[in-house]
C-alpha cells in the first residue's frame, strides 16, 4: 500500500467531535476544601460521605503523581480544572425520555446511539451520564421487579446510604493511588448497581459516559455489588467531543462479587485522542478493580481502548475467595501520538483460583503502546493457575510496543504461564490474502480483526459490532 493511501486512511478524522451547547452549572476552576464541601452540599450527601471525601483530599495532598508508567505528558495543573459541572435542568429531573432535554438526545443521536431505539431493540437499560449528573434512567421498573438496584451514584448515596457506606472504598481505598484518591475527594457521579442474592440480572446494564463541558475533568465512580449467587453484565461505552485542551478523566470502578456471583464488565472507550500532532485529547487515568470476595465468584473485564491521548488503566482482580476466577480481555489501539500504558493485575489469594489474561496491543503512527501487568500468587493460594498472552502488532516504523509483565509466585503448586509476541503484519499473510483476490485494505482489516478476535468474542453482541467499527475508524488499512 502506498504511503499516500496509508496517510489518508490513518488520518481519518474523529467522527464524534462536536459539543452540545447546554448551560452548565460549573464551579470555577481550582481545588480546595471548599470545592469539596460545595460538591457534597450540591449533591445533598450525608455527612459520612463528606468526611470520606475530606479524608481523601487530605491524603491526596501528601501524595505525588506517579511517574513510573511508560508515558510522557506535560504536567497536569490540578488547579486549572473545574471539579463540578451539572446540566442546568438538574432541578426538575425528567421522569422519562420524553422529558429529557432535546439537546441531550440530539447529542446521542449524533453519536449514533439513540437511547430509546437502542433500549427497545437491545433490551438494554441505559443510565446515561452526561457530564457529571445522570439525566436519564430507563427500564427502572423492570429491574426493580427483579430487585436490582441500578441508579446513578448520587441517587444511591441518598436512597441507599447504608450500602454505599458499607462498600465504598472497600476495593479501592481512598489511599490507593494518586488518581483514585483525587477521585475519592471530588467524584461527582457515576453508576451504582446492586444485584440481590440469587438474581440473574434480566438485561445487560449500560452507561454512556460523555465528557462535554469545556475544561471539566470528569470524575466518575462506579460501584457494582453482586450478592451471593447473582449475575450481572455491565457495559460502559464512551465517546467525547473534539477539544483542544487536554482533559483529565480519573474514574474509579469497584466491583464486588460474593459467593457464586459473577460480574462481567465490558468497556468500549473512544474518547477524543487528540489530533495528528497530539494536540488535545483526553488524559484517562482510571483505577478499576474487582474483588472476588466469595467462593466460586467470577469477575471478567473486557475492554476495547481506541481513544484518549493517554490511557493509564489496569483493571484488576483480587481473587480472594476459593475457586474464584478472574479474566481480562483487552484490545488497545494507539495511533498518531496516542500513548497507552495498560494491563491488569491478578492477585491470587484463595485456593484453586484461576485467571486468564489476553491482551492485544495495536500501535500505529508515532504512538506508544505498553502492556504492564502483575500476576501474583501468594503463599496460601494452593492450586492457582494463570495464563497470560500479550500480543502486539506494529503498523509503521515510528511507533512502539512494549511489554512489562511482572510475575511473583510464592506457592509451589501454582502454574503460571506468560507469553508475549511483537511483530508486524506478515508479508506472507498479506500475500496469501491478495493472491486470493482480497483487496489489500480488506486483507489488513481481516488480519487485524483476526488478531483481536479472542477479545471481541468476549464482548456482548451489540458492543462487538461497535468495537469493530471503532477499530476501523482508528486504524483501517494502517499498514504498508
Amino acid at each position, binding site marked *: 500500500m502506498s504511503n499516500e493511501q496509508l496517510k489518508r486512511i490513518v488520518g481519518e478524522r474523529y467522527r464524534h467531535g462536536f459539543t452540545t451547547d447546554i448551560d452548565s452549572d460549573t464551579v470555577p476552576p481550582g481545588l480546595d476544601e471548599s470545592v469539596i464541601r460545595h460538591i457534597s452540599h450540591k449533591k445533598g450527601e450525608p455527612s459520612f460521605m463528606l468526611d470520606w471525601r475530606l479524608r481523601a483530599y487530605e491524603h491526596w495532598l501528601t501524595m505525588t503523581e506517579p511517574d*513510573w508508567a511508560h508515558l510522557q505528558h506535560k504536567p497536569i495543573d490540578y488547579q486549572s480544572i473545574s471539579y463540578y459541572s451539572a446540566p442546568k435542568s438538574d432541578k426538575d429531573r425528567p421522569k422519562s425520555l420524553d422529558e429529557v432535554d432535546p439537546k441531550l438526545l440530539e447529542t446521542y443521536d449524533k453519536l449514533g446511539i439513540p437511547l430509546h431505539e437502542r433500549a427497545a431493540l437491545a433490551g438494554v437499560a441505559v443510565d446515561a451520564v452526561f457530564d457529571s449528573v445522570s439525566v436519564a434512567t430507563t427500564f427502572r421498573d423492570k429491574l426493580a421487579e427483579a430487585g436490582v438496584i441500578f441508579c446513578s451514584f448520587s441517587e444511591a448515596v441518598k436512597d441507599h446510604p447504608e450500602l454505599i457506606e458499607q462498600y465504598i472504598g472497600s476495593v479501592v481505598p481512598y489511599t490507593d493511588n494518586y488518581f483514585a484518591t483525587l477521585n475519592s475527594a471530588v467524584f461527582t457521579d457515576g453508576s451504582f448497581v446492586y444485584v440481590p442474592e440469587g438474581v440473574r440480572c434480566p438485561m445487560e446494564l449500560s452507561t454512556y459516559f460523555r465528557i462535554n463541558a469545556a475544561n471539566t475533568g470528569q470524575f466518575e465512580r462506579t460501584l457494582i455489588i453482586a450478592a451471593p449467587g447473582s449475575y450481572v453484565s455491565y457495559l460502559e461505552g464512551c465517546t467525547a467531543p473534539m477539544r483542544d485542551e487536554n482533559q483529565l478523566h480519573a474514574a474509579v470502578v469497584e466491583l464486588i462479587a460474593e459467593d457464586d456471583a459473577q460480574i462481567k464488565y465490558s468497556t468500549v472507550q473512544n474518547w477524543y485522542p487528540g489530533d495528528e500532532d497530539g494536540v488535545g485529547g483526553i488524559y484517562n487515568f482510571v483505577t478499576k478493580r474487582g474483588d472476588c470476595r466469595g467462593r466460586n465468584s467470577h469477575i471478567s473485564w473486557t475492554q476495547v481502548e481506541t481513544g484518549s491521548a493517554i490511557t493509564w488503566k489496569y483493571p484488576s482482580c483480587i481473587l480472594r475467595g476459593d475457586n474464584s476466577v478472574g479474566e481480562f480481555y483487552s484490545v488497545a489501539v494507539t495511533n498518531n501520538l496516542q500513548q497507552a500504558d495498560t494491563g491488569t493485575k491478578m492477585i491470587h489469594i484463595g485456593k484453586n483460583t484461576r485467571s486468564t489474561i489476553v491482551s492485544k496491543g495495536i500501535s500505529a503512527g508515532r504512538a506508544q503502546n505498553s502492556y504492564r501487568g502483575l500476576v501474583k500468587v501468594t503463599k496460601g493460594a494452593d492450586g492457582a493457575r494463570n495464563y497470560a498472552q500479550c500480543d502486539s502488532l506494529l*503498523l509503521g516504523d*515510528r511507533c512502539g510496543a512494549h511489554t512489562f509483565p511482572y510475575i511473583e509466585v*510464592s506457592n509451589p503448586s501454582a502454574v*503460571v504461564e506468560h*507469553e508475549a509476541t*511483537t511483530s508486524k503484519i506478515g508479508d506472507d499473510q498479506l500475500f496469501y490474502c491478495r493472491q486470493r483476490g482480497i483487496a489489500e485494505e480488506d486483507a489488513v482489516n481481516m488480519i487485524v480483526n483476526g488478531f483481536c478476535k479472542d477479545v471481541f468474542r468476549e464482548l456482548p453482541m451489540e458492543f462487538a459490532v461497535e468495537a469493530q467499527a471503532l477499530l476501523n475508524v482508528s486504524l483501517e488499512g494502517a499498514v504498508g
Partner: protein
Amino acid sequence: MTGNTAIDFLDAAPAPRDEPRWRSQLRDRAWEHFSRHGLPTRRDENWKYTNLRAIDKGQFTTGSLPPGETSVAPIGADKLAVVSFVDGQVTQRQDAPGLSLRLSAELGDEDFGLGELVDFDTHPLAALNSAYFDDAVVIDVAAGQVFDQPLLLEYVSTARPAPVLTCPRVFIRMGANTQLTVVERFVGVDGAANLTNAVTEVELGTGARLDHYRLQELSDSDKGISLLRARQHADSRLVARSIDIGGRLVRNDVHATLSEPGASCRLSGFYLCLGRQHTDNHTRIDHDAADTNSDEVYHGVLGGRARGVFNGKVIVRQDSQRVNANQSNRNLLLSGTAEIDTKPELEIYADDVRCSHGATVGQLDDEALFYLRSRGIGERTARALLTFAFAEEVVRDIEVDAVRDYLEHQVALRLPDHERLEKLV
C-alpha cells in the same frame, strides 16, 4: 579523596597510589559516583526484588590482604591459560603462547579504554568495582587469532576472620574474526562470607566470537555480584552462559549491545537456589542496529526458603529493522517457602521485528513422574531425575566437555539421592 568514609559498609575509601593516570581518573569518577549514590535500594526498579541490606549492614575490608587457605576442586579441562585469584590476590598465572594477557599494572600509561562501556547509572555496583579493583586482567586477541581451548579465570573466596570486598575486573578486546572461550569461575570455600563484585567488559570486533562462561559456586554465606558488559560489532557473536549453584545473595547482570548489523547473541542461564539463597539474574539486550538477532533461555530451580529473580529486557531501537529476539524463562518451584519473581520485558520501537518472550512457573510434570514410578524408580529419585533433566536443558549446551561434566556432577550433588541419580544418567 582520602579519608572519605561516607560508605559505612567499607572500612576505607579507595586510596590513591602510585598508578597510571587512566587508573586514577577512573577511580575518581567511580568513587565520586558511588559515594554520592551508595548502594541501590528496592525503590530502584532494577533492584525491586533484591535487597542489599545484608551488604549495607556488613563490614568489609578493602585493602590488599594475604590470601586465605583454599582447597578448591579443580576443573579438569585442558586450558589455554589460567589466572587464579584468592581473596583478590593473584596466586597462579599461566600464560598462553600468542595470547596477550596482562594485568593492569603491566600496562603502564597506555590508555586502552577500560571502563568505557560501563555505565554507572545503569549498574551502580560497577562504580564500586571501578573504585576498588587492583589487578584488572586485560586480554587482547589480535585480528584473526582463533583459540580452541578455554581461558580460565578463577576467583576464590576464603573463610577469614573479617569479610573482604574483592573486585575482579576483566577487559577483553577481540579483533576482527577472532575466537575465544573464557571461563570465569567464582568459588567459595566453606565458611567464606565475602563480597565479590566483578565486572567484565568485552568488545567484540567484526566477525569475532566469544564463548563466555560464568560459573558461580560461592559458599552459602558469600555474596556475589557480577556484570558482563559486551559491545558487539558487525557479524560478531556472543554466547554467554551463566550457571549459579551457590552463594547467599547473588546478583548477575548481562548487558549486551548489538551495535552493528549481523551481530547476534545467545544468553543462557541456570540457577539452582536452595536453603536461604537469593539469586537474581538481570539481562539486557539492546538491538541498536538492523539485522541483529538474540535469543535467551534461563531456567531456575527453587527450593527451601530460596528466592529467585529474573528480569530479561530486550530493547529494539528505532530503525533496527529485521530483528529477531526470543526469550524464555522457566522456573520450577519445589517448596512452599520458595519464591520466584520474573519479569520479561520487551521495549520495541521498530516494526519489522519478530520478538517474543515466555515465562512460566510450575512444578514437575505428574505424567512424567508417573512414567518413572511405573518403571520402578522411587518418587524421590524420580523427582531428582526430572529436576536434573530440567537443568540439563541449559547445562547440556556447554561446549567445553570438562566444564559440562563438572557442572552436571555439581548439580546432581545438590539434588536428593544423587548417587543413584548419577548412575541413572
